[in-house]
């Protein structure tokens, strides 16, 4: 039974990682501009994530080390430092966007501008990490995350053309607005395949004390968890295609995006959207803050655990405290979270090789994984993901400039 409940780790990783302000806003814009045509990008992102997350979980369960531990141990400190800088800078930007997303959701619910919410929101996120155990965060966000199912319900209520949906799952080229199409495709992949997901999941596996007996569970959790997130993102895209596109709403601002659910749920649409976004961004903010703090703590060899009292892992707790404090500043200054989101998606895509490339080596390391290291299937998939990540890295910044 305990193992079955581990699905919560999968769902929380998924809700916080897959369904957050970046993926929701890109899915909305994609649906609003191109109908079902970009569903394949979400499908591709989901498949890549299932494999990457399964591998990071397997790595942690078998070796009892996280990916970050192993990156330092295998590649040495100078290499690790380069990866740290790249990953942390981008993750930090995404954190600012997520905290902003919580603020924007509250702005919709209450009418009070999001800069006013910056401090209370940051405080709550910090408090949950300060006082909460890993289980509390994991299970709490998973449960709350179920409200995001409303995206799928909305899509179904609008009676999509299922043939068209199926068609969208296959990559096609658009007739016009090619730069924007490319930009959104890259953004969707950058929003989906976020490295912090892998770091969070592998640390979570250690927090939940997984061992070799969890390998099958890990496979199920990674598959079901990421599929959950993928399905929800597709629900968002389909809803946008049906509700926003016909009305010429582009969904490029949060106010426009918020209209997503009002066609399917005329009375509750706005509230449901805000509630779902609030939970998704909260999950993401927690996950990213923890992922950044885990990165420092594991890389430098500090004690780290959400289950320990803060003074027992002082540097770890100090790290996430500082991160959240600094992340609040741009929001207080009124920086637009949506703009930060779009920039961070492109940067995530650009720095992806830095995370995935070492990962390929680690997943083949016999000292860490023994007989559980990657077979040729998994290695091929990772190789494909690396190629995708290099392509994304090359084209994301130019596309951001041209099509963004």
């Amino acid at each position, binding site marked *: 039974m305990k193992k079955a409940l581990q699905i919560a780790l999968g769902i929380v990783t998924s809700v916080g990682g897959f369904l957050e302000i970046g993926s929701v806003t890109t899915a909305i814009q994609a649906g609003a501009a191109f109908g079902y045509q970009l569903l394949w990008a979400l499908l591709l992102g989901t498949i890549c994530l299932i494999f990457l997350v399964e591998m990071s979980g397997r790595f942690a369960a078998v*070796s*009892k*080390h996280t990916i970050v*531990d192993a990156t*330092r*141990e295998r590649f*040495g*400190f*100078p290499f*690790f*430092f380069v990866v740290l800088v790249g990953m942390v800078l981008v993750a930090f930007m995404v954190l600012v966007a997520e905290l902003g997303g919580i603020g924007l959701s509250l702005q919709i619910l209450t009418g009070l501008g999001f800069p006013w919410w910056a401090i209370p929101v940051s405080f709550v996120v910090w408090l949950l990490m*300060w*006082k909460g155990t890993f289980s509390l965060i994991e299970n709490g966000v998973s449960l709350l995350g179920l409200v995001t199912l409303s995206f799928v319900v909305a899509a179904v209520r609008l009676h999509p053309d299922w043939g068209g949906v199926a068609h969208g799952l296959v990559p096609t080229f658009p007739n016009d607005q090619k730069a924007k199409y490319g930009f959104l495709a890259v953004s969707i992949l950058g929003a989906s395949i976020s490295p912090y997901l892998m770091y969070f999941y592998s640390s979570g596996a250690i927090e939940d004390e997984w061992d070799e007996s969890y390998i099958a569970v890990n496979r199920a959790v990674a598959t079901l968890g990421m599929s959950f997130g993928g399905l929800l993102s597709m629900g968002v895209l389909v809803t946008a295609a049906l509700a926003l596109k016909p009305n010429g709403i582009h969904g490029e601002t949060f106010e426009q995006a918020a209209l997503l659910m009002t066609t399917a749920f005329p009375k509750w649409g706005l509230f449901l959207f805000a509630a779902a976004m609030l939970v998704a961004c909260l999950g993401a903010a927690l996950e990213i803050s923890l992922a950044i703090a885990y990165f420092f703590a594991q890389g*430098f*060899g*500090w*004690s780290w655990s959400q289950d320990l*009292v*803060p*003074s*027992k892992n*002082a*540097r770890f*707790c*100090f790290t996430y405290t500082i991160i959240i404090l600094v992340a609040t500043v741009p929001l207080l200054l009124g920086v637009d979270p949506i703009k930060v989101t779009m920039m961070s998606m492109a940067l995530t895509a650009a720095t992806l090789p830095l995370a995935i490339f070492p990962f390929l080596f680690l997943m083949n390391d016999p*000292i*860490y994984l023994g007989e559980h290291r990657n077979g040729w299937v998994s290695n091929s998939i990772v190789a494909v993901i690396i190629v995708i990540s290099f392509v994304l890295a090359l084209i994301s910044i130019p596309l951001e400039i041209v099509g963004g």
Partner: protein
Amino acid sequence: MDLVRDVLDKKLVDSEHCEMGRVDGLVMSLEEHSQPRITHIQIGGTTLWMRVHPVLGNLAAKLARKWGPRRAEPVRIPWSRVLTAGRDLKLHVKARETGAIDWEIWIARHIIERIPGGGHEEAE
């Protein structure tokens, strides 16, 4: 045993299973006509940043002298204290006594404990 593969950058654990950082450096003693020996494990920011670039290493040393909770020298643990070297290195020491977790204790006492809910780092 290979130093880079099996020792350098590995986690260090003390006799009470307390995490005390990683092997940031190793000291080799070289004498004329005798076999070089590894004498100490070195832990600390200065050692670490030196590996990235000497400029960063010197900067780290300067900052440690001004602001560090203890003396500027990196923490050294004699190799004789190493019990086992598997995936992590187990040491026959108490972390507190080595100075390896001085920063951890300083931050715990001066910052973390002052915030409500922070607990006490010495409590069992």
